Each structure stands twice: as C-alpha cells, then as structure tokens.
C-alpha cells in the first residue's frame, strides 16, 4: 500500500510547506489583526508591495497569454499552436493570483463587488476593475476546454467543445482588446500622480509604457514556464519554439527602449538620470535588467538557440520588469511622500504563498490535463495525414 506511506521529505516539499505556513499566518494577520499588524503601509505610502508586486507585476507578467494567442490565431503563426494552451493557462492563473491578492489589498474586501453597481467612469481604477472582471472571464472561457474535455459525458463534452470552437476567434479578439486596455490602464493609474511620482518614472505616456513593457515580459514568463515544463514535467514539444518566441521578444524590448528613451529626453528627465540619489541607482538597475543585458544576450544566435541560456535571459527580463513596476509604485513615490517603505515580512509571505499556489496549480494542470500536445494525439494526427 504505497499510497498510505508518509510522503517522502524532499527539499522542495519542505520549502513549499514553509511558504504555505508563513502565508497562512500572514493571512491570519491581515484579516484578523488588520493592516497595521500585517503591513508597513502608512498614510504616505498607501499602496505597497501587494499593489506593486501582486497587482502590477501579476497582471503585467500575465500578458503572455494574449500575445501568444494573438500570434497563433490572428497573425497565423501556426508554429505557436502547441504552446497556446500553456500560455493561456499561465495568464489565467496569473489573473487568479491578482484577484486573490486584491482581497488582501482592499480595506473592505467584502465590498469587492461595488464597482459592478457603483460607477465612476472618470476613474482609471474603475476601468481596471472592469478589465479584471471581464478578462478573467474571457481567460476562463479560453482555458475551459482543457478542463471540460475531461468530462465523462460524451454528448455534453462534444457540445461544449463545438460551441467553444465556434466562438474561439471572437474570444481571442476580445481578449486581446481587453488585456491591452488593462495593461495600459495600470499605467494610467499613475497619470494623476503628476508632481508626486519621480520624474524618471512619471510620464504622460505611462499607459503606453506599461503596455509596451508588459508584452515582452509576458513572453519571457511564458518561455520560462515552457522550459521548466519540458525539463521537469516531461512536457513534450519542440523546444525550438522557445527560440522562436524570443525572436519576437528582442524587437519588442528594443521598441520599448526607444520609446522610453525618447520619452525621458522629451519630458526633460535627462538630468535626473545622473543625480547622486538612490532613485538613480534603481532606475539604472531596472534599465540594465530589463533592456540592456537582455538585448545584448538576445542578439546572440547562441543564446536564442540554447534553452537554458534563454531561460536565464528571460529571468533577467522578468526581474527588470518587476524592478520597473516597484520603482513606479514604491521607489518613485517615496521622496514626495517623505516616507521610507520596506514591506513587512507578512506582506512578502502572503504574496509568495499566492504565487506558489499558482505555480503548483500550473504543475498539476500540466501533469493531469492535456496542456501540451499528447504523444497519442500526435500519433493519431500522423495516422490521419498518412
């Protein structure tokens, strides 16, 4: 009876248990003791790590789903087909973490439904709330066949899959529009902080900057997840697809770099780039991680064709992206607010626990659902074409 044995203790299992235990405590602190006990938020820094990492990065790094789906279904990049489902799954889980994280952020989380009935169409956050609701619905529908194709009732299953095929293109189109809006609106939240947000990050084009940076970052996450699935979860697909996606990433990063550079120069932020301040250092860290080093690495054929190198390049892009979002949401606001904010460990613990849950969900989905093309299917396709 091997199932009744105590599960083998491995380093990963210990780590995951620790993460969930601390996350559980952080959740208790947040909901039963309040903000003061569970966060270092203050009147000067009302939005901290939960917004900066949980929401801004959570949404931004989930941009891969719409980008890959658009490439495969709308632009006709047929080579992307085998990984569309994985990309959509990542975005879907990413959005779920954002929704769960939002319950931690809101002071009165039981009122999370208020924007459905209480409208203020002048508010960017109102639009963001609607984008979250609508795009999470679209992602659920886009991903649903992976779950429902496992239904034991043949007729219901086939009816659903047929219906899904009929609306798939519309879903993808709506998804692209909604998530494009959502990515931009997140930047738009900071339009109103004119005079508060440090000039290295404030820009009247910040919605476009958020949009342009989210796509390559989302693709980077997709590449990383695909590589890990192939390496540790035994997913079988042609690994050269990773190189192909990265070929898309380099020009996207270059476009962002150009846009950002022109924007910084035109709104007179150039002198701020060389002042002896902590903002300057964090700005260059962000630029180096997100733009400079990845562009140098991606220009090499050797890196693009080596999945492991590519994986680490993408990790840099993701770190640079996180640096950018934290710079906008925390670093850039500290000087004007006159506070120095360092997140409390419970803020980190809850965020990490939510992310770990998403990673585990991805793992189990790949193991138990048909996220990647199955060997059997491939054999059948071969038989059909012969």
């Amino acid at each position, binding site marked *: 009876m091997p199932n009744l044995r105590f599960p083998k203790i491995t380093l990963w299992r210990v780590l995951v248990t620790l993460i969930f235990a601390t996350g559980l405590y952080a959740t208790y602190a947040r*909901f*039963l*003791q*309040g*903000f*003061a006990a569970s966060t270092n*938020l*203050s*009147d*000067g820094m*009302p*939005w901290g790590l939960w917004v900066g990492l949980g929401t801004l990065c959570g949404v931004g790094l989930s941009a891969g789903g719409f980008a890959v789906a*658009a490439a495969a*279904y*709308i*632009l*006709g990049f047929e080579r992307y087909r085998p990984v569309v489902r994985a990309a959509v799954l990542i975005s879907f889980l990413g959005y779920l973490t954002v929704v769960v994280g939002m319950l931690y*952020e*809101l*002071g*009165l*989380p039981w*009122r*999370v439904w*208020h*924007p459905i009935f*209480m*409208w*203020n*169409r*002048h*508010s*960017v*956050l*109102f*639009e*963001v*709330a609607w984008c979250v609701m609508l795009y999470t619905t679209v992602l659920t529908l886009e991903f649903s066949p992976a779950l429902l194709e496992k239904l034991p009732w043949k007729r219901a299953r086939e009816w659903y899959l047929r219906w899904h095929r009929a609306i798939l*293109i519309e879903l993808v*189109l709506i998804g*692209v*529009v909604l998530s*494009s*809006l959502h990515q931009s609106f997140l930047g*738009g*939240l900071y*339009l*109103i*902080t*004119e*005079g*508060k947000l440090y000039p290295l990050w404030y820009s*009247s084009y910040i*919605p476009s900057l958020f949009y342009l940076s989210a796509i390559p970052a989302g693709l980077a996450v997709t590449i990383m997840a695909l590589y890990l699935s192939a390496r540790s979860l035994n997913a079988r697909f042609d690994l050269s697809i990773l190189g192909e996606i990265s070929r898309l990433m380099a020009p996207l990063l270059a476009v962002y770099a150009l846009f950002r550079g022109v924007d910084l120069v035109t709104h007179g932020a150039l002198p701020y780039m060389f002042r002896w301040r902590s903002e300057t250092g964090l700005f260059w860290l962000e630029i180096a991680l997100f733009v400079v080093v990845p562009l140098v690495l991606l220009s090499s054929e050797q890196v693009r064709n080596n999945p492991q190198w590519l994986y680490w390049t993408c990790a840099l892009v993701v770190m640079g992206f996180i640096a950018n979002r934290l710079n906008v949401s925390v670093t850039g*606001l500290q000087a004007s*607010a006159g506070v120095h904010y360092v997140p409390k460990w419970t803020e980190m613990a809850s965020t990490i626990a939510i992310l770990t849950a998403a990673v585990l969900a991805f793992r189990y989905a790949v193991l138990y659902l048909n996220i990647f093309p199955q060997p059997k299917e491939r054999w059948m396709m071969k038989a059909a074409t012969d």
Partner: protein
Amino acid sequence: MKTKAILVDITKCIGCRNCEQACKEAHGLPLENEPVLSATALTVVEQRGDKFVRRMCMHCQDPACASACPVGALKKTAAGPVAYDAGKCMGCRYCMLACPFQVPRYEWTKLAPYVKKCDMCAGRLEEGGLPACVQACPTGASLFGDRDDLLAEAQKRILENPAYVRHIYGSEEVGGTSVFFLSDVPFEKLGFVAAPTNHPLPTLTANALADVPTVVLLGSSLLFGLYWITDRRKQVALDEAKEKFFASHTDEKRS
C-alpha cells in the same frame, strides 16, 4: 446656494489650537493633541519657525480624489465640501495616492478601516452653521463664507498690505480649491506643496480615458483585418493544395 470656502490668514494665527479641539469634538474623535494629520486629527496646526500653519483638506474645485475613486464614494458638492460616502468605499486607497496635498488618512489599525478627512462640517453647513474650526478661531485667522467673497477679501488684503506674499494659495493650485491661505512668508518655506500645476489633475486621466473608444475601435478593426488576411491566406493555400491533389489524381486515371 453659493459655493462656500474657508480662508486661513497665517499672519493672524496665534497657534492656540482651538480649531483642532473643536474639530475633534464636532467629529466625536479622541481629544488628545496630535502633531500631524491622522485618522483622528482632521485638522492640525503645525509650527514652522514662528508661524503656525493649519493643515486640512483643501476641498479642490475639481478634486483628484473624487475622479480617482472607482465607486464614486468621494464627491465635490455644490455647497463646497468634498464629501465622503463611507457606505460606498471599498478601501482601495486610490484617493490617497491621487491627492496632491496628501490629505486623506486611513484607519490602519481597524479591521473595517475607512478613509478620514475634513468634510468642512458639511452637516453643520446644511443647518446654516459654521465649520467647527472657524467658529472656534478667536483671532479671525480662519474665515468662512462664499468662495467669491473670500477670494475678493484675500485680494483686498494683499493689495492693502505689502507684507503679504502676493499669492493666494489655493486660488490657482490644481485648478483652484475651496480653502485659501494668505501668508507673509513664502509658502514653500511653510511646507506647502509646490502645487503641481494650474490645471485640475483629473484632466490628466480624462484625456487618456477619452482616447479609449477610438483606440478600441481602431485596435479591434486592425485585429479583425489581420485575422481576415490570415484566414484568407489559409483558405487560398488549402484550395491550391486541393486543386493540386485532384489534378494529380485525374492525371493518374488518364494514364
């Protein structure tokens, strides 16, 4: 009813802090002295050198907080005050990020926390009364009245007395507020925010949001166009393949 406002003449403030106490009494807050604005101190008198500066909500004409609030819990009322509807608030705290004067405070220690800020005693105004702080001021440093009248009064004082800084703080800041300050010391030395601009901050987001329908329309037509081309190409390729297939088969039959 004309829109109301408060004028604070810093040259007349003696730092007695009666306004603070009156505010706390009027709002049922604990009476101890607090040095800075908090969830239990909606107005405070700060000492800067030998001057006393009162802090409170500026009650902007076009408030950033009201435009930012996703559920419309904050509203500029016709009477002047920027009012907060606690029943709508969901605690997102975007108002705090949006406020150029860093006024709204949050009840960080509570399990059901709300936003706290000066409401210009809207309830008392409705009954024809004065804001508690103005009523408690013994020197007339805080005045209450019609916004236009107070602006005229402030202008008169500046013209009559050259000691005043030639600026009414709040007359132009972020498009104008309903709380004005007069001073004989430059405002930036008294810790006043060098108010970002002379336009209301909500216009910054309004401009961006106004572009949304155009972007959506253009974007979706572009996407649909791209899809159409992709689909058409596929069809053509399929037809060609079919033709070739049938052509080769008929050839085989003939031979």
